């Protein structure tokens, strides 16, 4: 009897290697051997233990060869042993109830052996499967660990690469900064010297040779001097701008009123002899850099003074207002103002909204102001109307207490 492989493998997970035919053949052979052994021992055992060797055969077959072959061994072995060794010999003892009852223990024991053998076998198969599973899982785990280690290694490598790159970039930045600094130094030193010469010799020309020169020549000499002085201012303003960019904000508590007073003293030479109504309100105290804030007010106040030159009296107001919890400081003047159309150009370097003949200037002042405000984390903007004046508003990071 040949069953399909899939069928047998369902009920018998262990004897995978042998075909069904092989298993039945081996079972048959074992049964025969068991019978032969009992037969050989028959003279010694006589009527005792008629099923002993058959039982052993059943155990062997049940364990190794599966359910079907063990049932076969059980049947054949039982019939043979009953026929050969159970008295009355050479009969199959199914005739009396006694004989039938006498065989029941053997059948029960056999069934138990078969059931036990198969379930032991299944248990072993399950254990094997578990073990295989466990091994596979372990392999899997090991793989995962290896993979994770590789990933960690990769992260570490990338990190160190990144660190290296940061170091490189920092070194480059430091070098660039140093270059920039030496450039600024050269500009401040080397550009100013020739300007002094131009201005100096033009003036000596005026002083020493004035009587010999025509009025036209004197006017040209004056223009030479004016040009060199303008460029001197430009160099100074640019240096200021670059210093503001470079400088770190040294924050401390700064009362803006005292900064405004210092700025007013600083621009005195420009406001002397003019009729200006200063209206200075009570200003807050900010956490900021006193030097930078001073420069900020010098620029804003000098601008206000400059662009109110044609007003008598000029009115310049410095005060604060609150808006959405922010403290806004403003500088308002009644000067010439500007067209709001150009307000986007206001804070650009070298951007000017007035002709040089009207109002002198380098176009760097408000760029410097913007940098200072940004360095403090604030904002600056302006409102103006041509002929009616301008107002500059700014905030600084709200870390200070309103004073």
């Amino acid at each position, binding site marked *: 009897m040949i069953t399909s492989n899939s069928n047998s493998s369902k009920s018998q997970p262990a004897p995978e290697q042998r075909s069904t035919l092989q298993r039945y053949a081996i079972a048959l052979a074992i049964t025969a051997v068991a019978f032969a052994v009992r037969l050989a021992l028959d003279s010694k055992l006589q009527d005792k233990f008629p099923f002993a060797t058959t039982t052993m055969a059943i155990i062997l077959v049940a364990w190794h060869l599966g359910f079907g072959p063990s049932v076969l061994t059980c049947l054949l072995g039982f019939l043979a042993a009953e026929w050969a060794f159970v008295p009355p010999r050479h009969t199959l003892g199914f005739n009396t109830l006694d004989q039938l009852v006498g065989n029941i223990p053997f059948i029960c024991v056999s069934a138990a052996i078969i059931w036990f053998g198969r379930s032991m076998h299944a248990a072993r198969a399950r254990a094997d499967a578990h073990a295989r599973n466990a091994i596979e899982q372990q392999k899997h785990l090991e793989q995962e660990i290896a993979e994770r280690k590789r990933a960690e290694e990769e992260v570490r490598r990338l990190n160190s690469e990144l660190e290296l790159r940061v170091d490189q970039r920092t070194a480059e930045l430091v070098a660039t900064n140093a270059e920039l600094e030496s450039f600024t130094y050269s500009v401040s030193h080397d550009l100013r010297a020739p300007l002094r010469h131009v201005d*100096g010799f033009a003036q000596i020309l005026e002083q020493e040779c004035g009587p010999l020169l025509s009025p036209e020549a004197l006017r040209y000499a004056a223009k030479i001097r004016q040009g060199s002085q303008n460029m001197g201012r430009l160099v100074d303003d640019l240096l200021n701008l670059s210093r503001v960019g470079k400088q770190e904000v040294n924050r401390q508590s700064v009362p803006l009123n005292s900064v405004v007073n210092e700025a007013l003293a600083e621009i005195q030479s420009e406001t002397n002899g003019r009729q200006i109504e200063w209206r200075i309100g009570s200003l807050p105290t900010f956490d900021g850099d006193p030097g930078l804030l001073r420069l900020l007010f010098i620029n804003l106040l000098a601008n206000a003074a400059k662009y109110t030159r044609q007003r008598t009296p000029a009115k310049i107001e410095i005060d604060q207002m609150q808006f959405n919890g922010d403290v806004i400081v403003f500088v308002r003047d009644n000067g010439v103002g500007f067209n709001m159309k150009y307000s986007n150009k206001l804070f650009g370097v070298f951007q000017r909204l007035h002709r040089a003949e009207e109002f002198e200037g380098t176009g760097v002042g408000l760029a410097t102001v913007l940098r200072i405000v940004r360095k403090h984390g604030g904002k600056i903007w302006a409102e103006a109307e041509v002929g009616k004046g301008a107002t500059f508003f700014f905030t600084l990071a709200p870390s200070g207490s309103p004073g």
Partner: protein
Amino acid sequence: MASHDTDILLVEDDPQDVELALFALRKSNLTSLIQVVRDGEEALDFLFCNGQFSGRSFNHPPRVVFLDLKLPKVDGLQVLRELKNDPRTKMIPIVVMTSSAEQRDLQEGYKLGVNSYIQKPVGFDAFQKLITDLSYYWLKTNQISSPPVAARA
């Protein structure tokens, strides 16, 4: 009181600057003896009475030295360092006059013991006024101490 064979030692490499400074000094109406040297090495030779100035004496130091910082051979800060480190020259007033007012130069100058630090203005009017004021201050107003060598002699 030591006698002075030089009132002002002007250490300046730029001939244009020298001419402008001399013009300004002439216009200041101060009769002063001015010696011009053109680099740091020459300045040190003059003040330490070496080389072409070996005939000079430490007894006759200039009343003031106007020192530029950017100088050939030995730069101004080094000249300052050597002068202020030597007891024979450390009492000579040194005024650094330079085009730049870089913070690091200022700090270094004052650390080395400079007596005054001035940024040369671009405008000649201001320059001329500055030279006049400085000359009056250092030659007329300021009192100087006799050099130690002279005191021992």
